[in-house]
């Protein structure tokens, strides 16, 4: 059981245990609540369905009664089946409608559970199904009965729907739980123990210049404090001795010189005291980023309705166009601020940029929440967009600062998964919170979350030590500079743009409309779309690790493009309808999980020279801007194609474009590699 040769320990087994225990407890608690809730629902809602059945029975019986009052015999009523079918169509909780004689013989019988009706069925109905009946009279004499039965699977159907919805909630809770746990484990266990190990290993080599610098009251903290104390004491003793040597060294002669030489084999702190190590954990970025994006996403579900409240007609613009203005302004300002933020990040570091981003974000969110006019709304929402661009670029920059070529894809996967988790959780929670406290107050909650993310960043992000000497290059000039890089160009046009095109065009635009056309409700559509996010969250880090370990970044980007496109292209061959869409969503998720993080990680490698001139984050900013082109083109292309050819063919075309672009990208990267091999440029594609 020897320690690993590297300075960092593998705390995998402890982490696994903690995640396992915590995950199991969360699942147990959630399932307990779920089961108790379902029982309560069944207990509470059945009487309501029963009351509805009674109302239907009363209303329908009067229709029959009118005919019977005219003297028409019960068995000679005309068009009864049509009336019954109409009622059944409008009331899904009704299993059957029957008009029977007094001895229970069915004269008219309709409904999905019609086969279950027995001639002498009592009020309890079949299989415990509830039934309500109303006596039908002719000339004051009872001639039959109208029997209305509750659909025996209605409660079960409702419960299935609820269970599926709550399963989504459970998944979201587990994702959020996982994020919290990783943060906890890294900050309180693996981070401190890694630093303790680092301090001890350096000490074992005679280097006493650093301490962990962590104080905590638990077992780990006690051990660390002891280690730090020994290193600090050694340094103090060294300083004292050196001070005394300085006063009388000349008189010491050869013996002192020999002792000094012996001490020179050790390293002590250069200034007064040993420096604390800086605990830099990649997952530190995830928690503040998650909180920040979560805060922004909270308004997604209700924002269009909020905009409607402040709607003001603008001459020349339709109602829909005016309602879309704040979102368009957000996109415009975010896209504009992204490259500028990239340049700032390289100069001032991710930490300071994130803290700076709090100003426009907080003003923007609070201003939006308190906006009284449409103009104020657009102004503050645009300010929020600038903050959003700054914060997300700051986090990317932070990851870039902390990663090397060996783990860059994994670092970017941290970024991608945080955004995905926030997107899922934010949309779900935002609607709930807004429903309880109102739209405006929800913006205040978002602002509080942003503030919290800033506090975490201020606390856990280590300030940038050295400032990169990067020239301030305007966006257009930077674009011009990178446009001469063939491999960067093809990566953007054939990798980044198609990825966003299929995401916004196919997943965000086309799938909700197509599924709605197929008769799916909002919950069902949401659940199918969530599959994409779930796959991204789970698979993205795995593929990123593969990309880093095997150096397959270019290959994974190409493979990801092909997989992402092939599902949409093959919808008719995958069974069409809901099944085809689901499979296409799965392949899209897999494709993007394969390629997204490796694509970002490739940038510094295909632009080795440009990174030196423009800075790494500035290039990531250019990537973000180029991606926006795909995001804008996606819905436009999808809408045009769907209008011309219908949803399935439009999906096929988009899928084929994306898969074809990936194949072309592969060929051009090979070509680029062939030409690059003649020049000393880093290449791995």
């Amino acid at each position, binding site marked *: 059981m020897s320690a690993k040769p590297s300075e960092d320990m593998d705390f995998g087994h402890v982490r696994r245990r903690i995640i396992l225990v915590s995950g199991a407890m969360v699942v147990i608690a959630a399932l307990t609540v779920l089961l108790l809730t379902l029982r309560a629902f069944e207990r509470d809602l059945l009487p309501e369905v029963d009351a509805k059945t009674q109302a239907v029975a009363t209303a329908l019986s009067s229709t029959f009664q009118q005919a019977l009052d005219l003297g028409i015999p019960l068995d000679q009523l005309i068009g009864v089946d049509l009336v019954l079918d109409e009622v059944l169509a409008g009331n899904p909780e009704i299993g059957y409608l029957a008009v029977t004689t007094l001895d229970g013989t069915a004269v008219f019988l309709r409904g999905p559970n019609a086969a279950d009706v027995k001639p002498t069925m009592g009020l309890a109905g079949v299989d415990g199904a509830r039934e309500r009946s109303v006596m039908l009279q002719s000339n004051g004499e009872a001639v039959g009965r109208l029997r209305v039965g509750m659909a025996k699977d209605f409660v079960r159907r409702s419960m299935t729907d609820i269970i599926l919805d709550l399963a989504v909630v459970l998944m979201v809770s587990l994702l959020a739980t996982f994020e919290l746990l990783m943060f906890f484990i890294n900050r309180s266990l693996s981070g401190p123990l890694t630093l303790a190990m680092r301090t001890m290993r350096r000490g074992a080599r005679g280097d006493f210049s650093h301490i962990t610098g962590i104080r905590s009251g638990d077992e780990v903290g006690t051990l660390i404090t002891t280690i730090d104390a*020994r290193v600090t004491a050694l340094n103090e003793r060294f300083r004292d001795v050196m001070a005394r040597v300085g006063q009388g060294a000349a008189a010491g002669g050869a013996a002192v010189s020999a002792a000094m030489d012996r001490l020179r084999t050790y390293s002590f702190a250069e200034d007064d005291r040993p420096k604390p190590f800086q605990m830099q954990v990649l997952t530190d970025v995830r928690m503040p980023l998650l909180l920040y994006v979560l805060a922004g996403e909270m308004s997604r579900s209700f924002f269009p309705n909020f905009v409607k409240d402040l709607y003001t007609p603008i001459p020349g613009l339709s109602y829909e166009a005016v309602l879309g203005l704040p979102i368009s302004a957000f996109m415009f300002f975010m896209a504009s601020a992204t490259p500028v933020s990239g340049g700032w990040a390289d100069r001032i570091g991710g930490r300071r940029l994130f803290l700076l981003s709090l100003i426009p974000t907080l003003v923007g969110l609070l201003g939006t929440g308190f906006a009284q006019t449409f103009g104020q709304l657009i102004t503050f929402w645009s300010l929020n967009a600038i903050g959003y661009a700054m914060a997300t670029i700051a986090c990317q920059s932070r990851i870039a600062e902390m990663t090397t070529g060996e783990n860059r894809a994994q670092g970017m996967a941290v970024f991608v998964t945080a955004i995905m988790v926030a997107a899922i959780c934010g949309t779900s929670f935002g609607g709930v919170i807004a429903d309880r406290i109102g739209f405006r107050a929800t913006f205040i909650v978002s602002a509080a979350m942003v503030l919290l993310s800033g506090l975490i960043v201020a606390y856990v992000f280590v300030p940038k030590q050295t400032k990169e000497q990067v020239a301030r290059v305007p966006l257009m000039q930077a674009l011009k500079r990178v446009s001469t890089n063939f491999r960067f160009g093809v990566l953007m046009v054939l990798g980044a743009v198609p990825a966003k095109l299929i995401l916004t065009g196919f997943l965000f635009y086309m799938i909700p409309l197509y599924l709605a056309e197929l008769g799916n409700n909002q919950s069902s559509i949401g659940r199918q779309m969530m599959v994409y996010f779930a796959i991204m969250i789970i698979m993205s880090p795995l593929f990123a690790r593969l990309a880093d370990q095997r150096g397959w970044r270019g290959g994974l980007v190409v493979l990801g493009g092909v997989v992402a496109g092939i599902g949409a292209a093959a919808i008719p061959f995958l069974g069409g309808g809901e099944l085809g869409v689901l499979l296409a969503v799965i392949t899209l998720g897999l494709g993007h999980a394969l390629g997204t993080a490796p694509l970002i990680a490739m940038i510094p490698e295909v632009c080795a020279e440009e990174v030196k001139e423009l800075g790494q984050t500035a290039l990531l900013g250019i990537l973000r801007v180029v991606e926006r082109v795909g995001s804008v083109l996606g819905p436009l292309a999808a809408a045009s194609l769907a209008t011309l050819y219908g949803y399935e063919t439009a999906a096929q075309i988009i899928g084929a474009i994306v898969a074809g672009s990936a194949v072309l990208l592969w060929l051009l990267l090979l070509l680029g590699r062939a030409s690059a091999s003649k020049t000393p440029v880093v290449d791995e594609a």
Partner: protein
Amino acid sequence: MQSAPRRVADGIGFWGVVTKVASGSLSLFGLRFSYKITATILVLVIFASAVIAVLAWHKYKSILDALVVSRLEVTAGHLQNGIQAPLRLGLSLSDVRTMQEQIDRTLGQDRMITAIHVFETAPERRMVYGAGHGAAGEGAVPQPWADAVAAGSGGRFWRSTAEGGQVLGVTLVDRLEQPVGGIAVVYSTAYVDTRIAAMTTSLTDYVIIASGAAAGLGFLAVQILFRPVSKRLKWLARFAGSSGDAEAAGPRPAGTGDALSAAMEQEYGRFDAAVREAETALGDLETLVQTTDARSRAS
């Protein structure tokens, strides 16, 4: 004994904020690691349970609302069926004499309904029949109702508000399919509110029960799984505190078989040896300097 560590600047440890273990200063109280994990689990299970409960509450509310509204739609539709046929034949609302009896009966059948109004908007705007709170003739037709009728078509349901609760209305049309009036079913939301309040209480109880049970189980699991690690780390801390004197550190925890703490112990051994060597080297130099100083003073 080693000298006490000086204040360490730039100390980090986010969890310290929660456990009152501030960075850069001594902890106010030290929590065992296993307690920290248990506390985290408690926070997480409360969070997850509460999220499920909140969303379940919304689901319940939406289903209950939908059921109640659909039931009222059946009732309103039933009333509309009774009056629409004569209107299509060219009769006016006041000619349908059976209507008052029908709305009285309907009012008595559903406790949620507080009033039913049948009103005309054309040729003149007036209440024609009514039952319950604010019966016919006691007030004018509210403007929102008239607007809803004007905007609607025959049989179309609309929503509004009125004194005494919410309103579910349905538009009546004449033989030319022109809106001439409507039926407004006024219902109290108190019933739904009561049911929702009861469900809120139930869900809160479930969250407390589930979180408490899961946290208890979690505490036991953590004690079983992390006790060996905790023991080993504590022994290691004592071992380190006693300058590597294994006897002074007390009996070594047996049978833990934990790779992490074993590696830590091994690494501490190397570190301790290096520190001792450095101390010896410093001690030798100190002795030499003292000797030199003494000689200088003597000479």
